[in-house]
């Protein structure tokens, strides 16, 4: 019935149909609107302009026959929560009518219209429905309008489908522009893309997820709250997004709250969404969903997903295609930036062993680095059959026990830096890695840490470039470690070439000597010796001892001129052909020890073994006790004598005359007492190494004063005490020194001379000049001192047996103290034997440096 009526168009109707077709064609050819529903509204306007037509509504269907959107001219959809729901309701209410190709009358309750108009509907397109049109007409013109529309339905359907394509194409164009603008930049960012895509697709939420080590992580989202707190991680197959990731296929849902629809499309049973975007009210979006995989070289490198509130316009296959188009562009842009970077780094230097590890958190929340991949070099180095053996392994297992812990802190620090800057370098460090067979390989590893900041939070990859440590590197390292160890013990290591220039001076020596590194490298080593000539002797002696000398003591000099005693080992260095190329050695400042040994009268040319030193210390303690006793004894006699002499006078034993005879003696004895006490205080000063003020001391005057002190003692033994003050004035007028200390030198030497002289002989005090300098000489004729004792007599506590036999009470301190004082003045003392007038005499010669005695007494 209706089919027959469709065949006929009256002559009036034909131009109208032609007019409609022309207008629709014009809309197809040059769409004024880019908005799909706007185009539909334009089409509706064309229809409404037909004579007798009052209003029109055009609904577009998607390829599945579901209503998509509508455009209207004066004909409103029935009220509903959303336009989409209204469309759905309309289609539902019309039911089987929709299937009538000749059109159908729409009951007023389904699509209410004002006034007397009636609404007529017509499906567009056959057999697939592209859409529906509704037209409100006056009853009288209904037939004519229906005839024209039936005639024009093909072009109307074509227009609807064309609009759909047009919109899709225009969006593709815009997406292309977006891609060009975004990826064309050097440092493009994902950040703004979700917003742009949301606008283009009229989506309410858009999120980009990026593949990262087998998981999807958040790239960017329109929802700023997403990923805050808990990082977004989708594993394969988890949730809607994870199912896209797993299947590499897009997913379009009209209602995410419909489990059946989800099951139908995604084959998953989903509970609550895993990481949903939130809307403005804090609730997560539900409704339509469109997600597409970002593919690159057949691999999913990310997922782009969007949601639209339920009831808004439906996501179409065109939407899906458009989004897929963009997702592929994005995937292509993203993938090389990361995967190629890693791959490039790995294969760039194939000769070295490279292992890439990824820093992640384990289930317990601990950070852990796992091997991602290794190159062929690493495979060889670690003795792996295939790289798969090691993938996923905790990096700590790759290192020898304890080695990873040494570098961990440094690595973590650099990881933090990489998070901020994108990359960081660490090393090279020395370490040992563990081969599969359990052996360890010493390696030098340089690390490059790359942060993938496309994902949030950035993930960190550490690339270790390991090279087997060469033998020479190992030795150099060992050398360095030993040097550090030596430094902690303040032991200096040095190397010198054949000419005595220091090679690679180090901080330890700089600290010990006071010279800067630069100064050390510019000076010959002999300058470090207190006596530069000693170095040559030292080297010569070393050569004679098979090129090695151990534990020798040398007097060295610091930059500030102070001296110190160094104990050292030295070795002649030869090249492979046995040619001498220099020396190397170790030494340390042992001044304190040498001073102690010197004080203990022990050798000062070597460091004593502990047991020797302790024996010396014990002997020293005993000596001190004995010395105190001896001192007490020596004081008793003269003091007793003084008291008893006075008592004699008091008791009338002696008269005034006799008393005045005796007084010089007792005064002399009192002087002896005070001399003894004074020796003590000088000894203390000297032993403490106290510096003392120096003044010009007139030696002749000191000699004469000493003579006066001893005149009675000398007289008692019939000794002549001759002071050649003329020679003193000529050769040794003044000495820069400490008057009282120097007086003590005279006193002790003259006292000894008196004690040990034969009666009736002479004690002579004079000055002479030797090539080395002026000398003070005190000689006497008496006890000869045997050759082997001439050095020993200056040792503390040493007394010759003859001296002990002759003067049982004695301390053995006098000469020791003399030498100490003399040396403190930069002079030296020796005991000699000389023959004068056919008589052998004992001679003490104190040799002063020229500088110490440069001052002449003014005339």
């Amino acid at each position, binding site marked *: 019935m209706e089919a027959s009526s469709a065949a006929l168009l009256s002559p009036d109707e034909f131009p109208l149909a032609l007019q409609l077709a022309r207008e629709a064609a014009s809309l197809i050819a040059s769409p004024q609107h880019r908005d799909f529903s706007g185009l539909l509204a334009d089409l509706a306007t064309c229809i409404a302009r037909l004579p007798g037509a009052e209003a029109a509504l055009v609904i577009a269907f998607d390829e599945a026959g579901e209503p998509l959107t509508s455009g209207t001219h004066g004909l409103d959809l029935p009220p509903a929560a959303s336009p989409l729901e209204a469309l759905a309701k309309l289609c539902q209410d019309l039911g089987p009518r929709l299937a009538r190709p000749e059109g159908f009358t729409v009951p007023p309750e389904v699509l209410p219209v004002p006034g007397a108009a009636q609404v007529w509907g017509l499906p567009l397109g056959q057999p697939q429905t592209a859409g529906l049109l509704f037209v409100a007409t006056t009853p009288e013109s209904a037939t004519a309008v229906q005839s024209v529309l039936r005639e024009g339905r093909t072009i109307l359907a074509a227009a609807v489908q064309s609009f759909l394509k047009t919109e899709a194409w225009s969006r593709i164009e815009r997406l292309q522009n977006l891609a060009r603008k975004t990826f064309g930049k050097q440092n493009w960012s994902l950040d703004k893309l979700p917003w742009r895509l949301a606008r283009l697709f009229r989506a309410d939420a858009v999120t980009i997820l990026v593949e990262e080590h087998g998981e999807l992580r958040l790239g960017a989202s329109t929802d700023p709250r997403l990923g805050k707190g808990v990082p977004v991680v989708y594993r394969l197959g988890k949730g809607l997004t994870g199912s896209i990731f797993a299947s590499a296929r897009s997913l379009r849902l009209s209602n995410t709250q419909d489990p059946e629809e989800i099951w139908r499309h995604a084959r998953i049973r989903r509970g609550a969404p895993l990481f949903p975007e939130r809307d403005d009210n804090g609730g997560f979006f539900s409704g339509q969903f469109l997600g597409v995989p970002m593919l690159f070289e057949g691999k999913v490198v990310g997922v782009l997903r969007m949601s639209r509130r339920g009831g808004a316009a439906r996501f179409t296959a065109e939407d899906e295609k458009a989004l897929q188009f963009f997702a592929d562009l994005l995937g292509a842009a993203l993938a090389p930036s990361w995967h190629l970077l890693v791959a490039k780094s790995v294969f760039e230097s194939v000769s070295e062993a490279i292992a890439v590890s990824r820093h992640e958190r384990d289930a317990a929340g601990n950070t852990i680095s796992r091997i991602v991949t290794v190159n062929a070099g690493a495979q060889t180095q670690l003795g792996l059959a295939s790289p798969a053996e090691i993938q996923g392994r905790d990096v700590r297992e790759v290192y020898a026990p304890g080695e990873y812990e040494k570098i961990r802190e440094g690595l973590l620090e650099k990881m933090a830096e990489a998070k901020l800057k994108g990359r960081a370098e660490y090393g090279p460090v020395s370490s040992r890695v563990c081969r599969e067979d359990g052996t360890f390989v010493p390696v030098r590893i340089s690390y490059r840490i790359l942060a993938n900041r496309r994902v949030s939070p950035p993930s960190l990859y550490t690339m270790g470039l390991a090279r087997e440590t060469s033998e020479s590197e190992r030795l150099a390292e060992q050398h360095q470690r030993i040097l550090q160890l030596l430094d902690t013990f303040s032991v200096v290591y040095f190397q010198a070439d054949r000419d005595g220039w220091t090679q690679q001076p180090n901080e330890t020596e700089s600290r010990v000597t006071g010279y800067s590194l630069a100064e050390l490298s510019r000076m010959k080593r002999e300058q470090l010796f207190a006596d530069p000539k000693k170095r040559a002797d030292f080297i010569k002696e070393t050569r004679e001892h098979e090129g090695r000398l151990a534990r020798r003591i040398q007097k060295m000099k610091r930059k500030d001129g102070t001296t110190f005693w160094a104990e050292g080992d030295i070795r002649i260095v030869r090249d492979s052909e046995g040619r001498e190329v220099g020396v190397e050695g170790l030494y340390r400042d042992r001044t304190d020890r040498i001073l102690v040994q010197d004080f203990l009268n022990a050798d000062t040319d070597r460091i004593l073994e502990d047991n020797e030193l302790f024996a010396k210390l014990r002997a020293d303690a005993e000596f001190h006790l004995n010395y105190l006793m001896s001192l007490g004894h020596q004081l008793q006699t003269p003091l007793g004598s003084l008291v008893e002499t006075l*008592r004699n006078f008091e008791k009338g*034993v002696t008269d005034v005359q006799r008393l005045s005879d*005796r007084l010089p003696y007792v005064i002399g004895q009192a002087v002896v007492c005070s001399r003894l006490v004074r020796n003590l205080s000088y000894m203390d000063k000297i032993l403490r190494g106290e510096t003392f003020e120096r003044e010009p001391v007139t030696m002749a005057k000191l000699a004469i004063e000493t003579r006066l002190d001893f005149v009675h003692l000398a007289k008692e033994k019939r000794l002549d005490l001759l002071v050649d003050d003329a020679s003193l004035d000529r050769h040794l007028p003044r000495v820069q020194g400490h008057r009282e200390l120097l007086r003590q030198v005279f006193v002790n030497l003259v006292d000894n001379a008196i004690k040990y002289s034969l009666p009736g002989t002479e004690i002579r005090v004079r000055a002479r000049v030797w090539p080395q300098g002026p000398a003070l000489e005190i000689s006497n004729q008496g006890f000869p001192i045997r050759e082997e004792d001439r050095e020993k007599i200056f040792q503390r506590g040493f007394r010759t047996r003859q001296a002990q036999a002759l003067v049982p009470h004695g301390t053995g301190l006098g000469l020791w103290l003399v030498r100490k004082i003399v040396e403190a003045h930069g002079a030296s003392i020796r005991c000699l034997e000389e023959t004068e007038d056919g008589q052998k005499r004992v001679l003490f010669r104190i040799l002063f440096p020229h500088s110490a005695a440069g001052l002449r007494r003014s005339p």
Partner: protein
Amino acid sequence: MTQTAPPTPRRVLIIEDQIGDLLWLLDLIRSRGYETVLVTNEDAARRRLEAVSRGEESYALAIVDVAVAIKDLADLIALDDQFFEDSQDTGIRLCRYARHGLGLTPERFTLACLTVRDDLDVRREMKALQVPLFNKAAQSPAESIRGFIEQQLKPPA
């Protein structure tokens, strides 16, 4: 042969090498009318004591320094390398020699010793030898050699 006690000799033997310290003692002894005979080493002292034991010499008293020199300097020089005995107790050795070696008992011969050492072993030995020991240090006259001399050496009547 009946022995009558010989008149006390007005001579004192002094065995001391540092006589400079004991000039006051010489003054004291001389003030009481006694001569002093000074010996400055152990060797010479032995010869004197031997002479006493043989009755060739006699002394009212012998005062011995505990640590007198062994020999005189010239003798020592001549001896050169020989081993020397301990010089610290030459005086003790002399007293021992007088009492035991020569039989100069306290009844026959009065000895007194001077020392600067107050060691217990010295004291003990001197007590056994019945030789009073005096310290050279100044002390109260009664305890010193001064008191002993005043008691032993009667001034001439």
